[in-house]
């Protein structure tokens, strides 16, 4: 028995089988239904945007690793850049000029992630940083929404755009729930199919990559908030189901807000985080200039995570007062 062959480490000496890589590839798998839905409705162009975004993210990730002196090969394959690439693409219209897609990947990986120190250290969701950067820089291109099954260059408003411009009655009449559910509407290429995103969300829940707190409180808050506004002014505001199925709520609640790095670590914190995401989404949708508010809502809540983690830390064992026996 040679001593130097022995593993010497501090306890524990056992680990479960989870790894960062497994977590990341499970998320990729969970995104697959939405990838397929996006390709079905927005064609090969959508697939091209996704592939380009992933490849660009991997290249920028590799360069950033090299520059910051980190092991390129292992870390590149941890899967996080693949997810960032997919999520960036899913938050873009499928007709976006390809060079803008590359700019988005650059912003996500470098400005969104590596300037803070890489995976685990970024305060804001990198894909959303990229989306908001592109939305503010190229507002026209970022709001040119190709029609599902449409030919190149034909665009139309998103359901939320219709709602903002033409009111609830027109929106309800022109867009059936069925289309919202399967994703046969205009929008970012990965956000339109509620059913595909829900399926992905269930995969994440079952595989325990995420817990229920953030998505459920996010969606529930949107439901409650828009139920109230709908009941108060049914002619002005649309019903809660329509709100939940349209726009980025599903993609945001299941895949963007649940990003581990940029969400709270405690269950109590996650509950508040989800409520905050839903709340700001509704505020922006109903009263702000943009028709959709999911990205901004999540980014606002990302910024509050350090505070949430501090003030909603888990309840420590023994914090409850001892009830018996302690009396002398």
């Amino acid at each position: 028995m040679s001593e130097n062959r022995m593993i010497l480490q501090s306890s524990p000496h056992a680990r479960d089988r989870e790894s960062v890589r497994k977590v990341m590839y499970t998320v990729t798998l969970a995104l697959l239904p939405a990838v397929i839905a996006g390709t079905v409705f927005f064609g090969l162009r959508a697939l091209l945007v996704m592939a380009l975004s992933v490849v660009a993210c991997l290249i920028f990730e590799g360069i950033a690793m090299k520059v910051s002196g980190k092991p390129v090969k292992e870390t590149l394959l941890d899967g996080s850049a693949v997810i960032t690439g997919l999520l960036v693409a899913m938050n873009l219209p499928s007709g976006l000029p390809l060079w803008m897609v590359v700019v988005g990947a650059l912003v996500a990986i470098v400005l969104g992630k590596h300037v803070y120190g890489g995976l685990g250290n970024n305060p804001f969701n990198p894909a959303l940083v990229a989306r908001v950067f592109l939305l503010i820089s190229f507002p026209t291109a970022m709001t040119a929404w190709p029609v599902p099954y449409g030919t190149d260059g034909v665009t139309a408003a998103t359901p939320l755009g219709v709602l903002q411009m033409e009111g609830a009655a027109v929106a309800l009449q022109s867009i059936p729930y069925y289309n919202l559910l399967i994703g046969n509407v205009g929008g970012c290429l990965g956000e339109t199919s509620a059913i595909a995103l829900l399926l992905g969300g269930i995969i994440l829940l079952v595989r325990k990559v995420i817990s229920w707190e953030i998505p459920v409180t996010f969606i529930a808050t949107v439901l409650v908030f828009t139920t109230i506004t709908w009941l108060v002014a049914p002619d002005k505001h649309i019903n809660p189901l329509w709100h939940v199925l349209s726009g980025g709520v599903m993609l945001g609640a299941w895949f963007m807000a649940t990003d581990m790095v940029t969400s709270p670590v405690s269950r109590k914190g996650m509950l508040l985080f989800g409520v905050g995401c839903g709340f700001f989404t509704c505020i922006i949708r109903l009263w702000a200039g943009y028709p959709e508010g999911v990205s901004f809502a999540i980014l606002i809540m990302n910024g509050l995570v350090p505070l949430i983690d501090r003030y909603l830390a888990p309840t420590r064992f023994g914090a409850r007062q001892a009830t018996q026996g302690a009396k002398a």
Partner: protein
Amino acid sequence: MSSVTARFKRGGVHPYEGKELSAASELVTVEVPKRLQVPVTQHLGKPSKVVVEKGQDVQVGQILAEADGPISAPVHSPVSGKVLKIGDAEIVGAYRAPVIDIMNDGKFTGEEAFKGTPVVNWDEKGDFLGRIRSAGVVGLGGAAFPTAVKLRPPPNVKIDHLLINGCECEPYLTADDILMRERAAEVVAGCAIMAGILGVDRVRIGVEVNKPRAIEALSTAISQQVYTATFKGAIPSFDIVTVPLRTMYPQGAEKQLIEAITGRQVPSGQLPFSVGCVVQNVGTALAVFDAVARKRPLFERVVTLTGGAITNPGNYLARIGTPVSALVAAAGGTTEALAAQVAGGPMMGKSLRNHDVPVVKGMSGLLFLTAAEAAAAEETDCIRCGRCVNACPMGLAPCEITAQADFLKWEKSISLGALDCVECGSCQYVCPANRFLVARVRLTKFYSRRLPK
């Protein structure tokens, strides 16, 4: 057994149990080697004082080192023979510690005195605590705190529960299991003795449900009053119950066990006394019985040898001071697959460098693990997944505590609860980034002792 079995309320993990490897085989007595190395201090507390000299002849059970003050424990000779050397050697947990080398003459002179019929004479109850102290009994679950100290609570504290820890929640280990199965009556008698000393009647023996035979043996010993066979004099009445607990690590951590059985939470920084409880391990209960009924000092114990890289996994009865190499030989040696060896369980045990270290009172097991079992991995950056937060039975956020430690912010790490950490390892067990969370908490604890108060 009820379908909803009690457990601690928060956190916890369920690692591969691995108990079947060592649980089935019979208890094997390890041949006493020619030469033994007995560490002078084998307890948590003030170091013991050596009372023998080099060249001196000793008998089995003779005091080698005596307790120094109230929170200390004596150490006895496991064999008869000659003191060869008093010096320093490597032991588990220390590169250099004072040890007494003894040459075994093979005669076991003096051992007869401890082999008579055991008698627990309740009319001598006032003498029990002294016998436990002078027998050198310490907590055999691993912490090795002097048992007599825990049996004498401060005068202003009212104790209403004696909890006996038979959880053996560490994966792989079965040393407590085999004692409960094979020596149930003596274990329960030991519990009764401790209850008598404390003046409580309520005794609860907590056992995880993955040890059904142990639960059955204890329940039989209790219900058929087998444990009272050795009792004489005015026997107090006892309410002793076996409590099946859910198999969930760390069910056997002191505070978690108290919560599972009584529903009480020991406040941060306080002892079980503060909620009216005293917790003792089942192996300790047996040692207490031996000390009181046989006046037999603690000079041997059961050690589980197990893991995928030992030829004959099982439980081995060994004298204190026996080198690990003798136990390994008794178990048929290690295999080629050996990649890591650990003294204790996989969750809280300490890495072993070699087989030269001796068996001590607190050594519950020796693991010989294959590379797959040992699961060593490079650590990567924290991805804030929160799995550690959900796993922590103490309600802490290990990722946050250790992030502060990385920046040498010890005060901040302490304010986040680092000192409440019981080092159970659940957080690190689940960490997908393989972070050395427990080591960072230990570092914080180390620096906390140097901070200005």
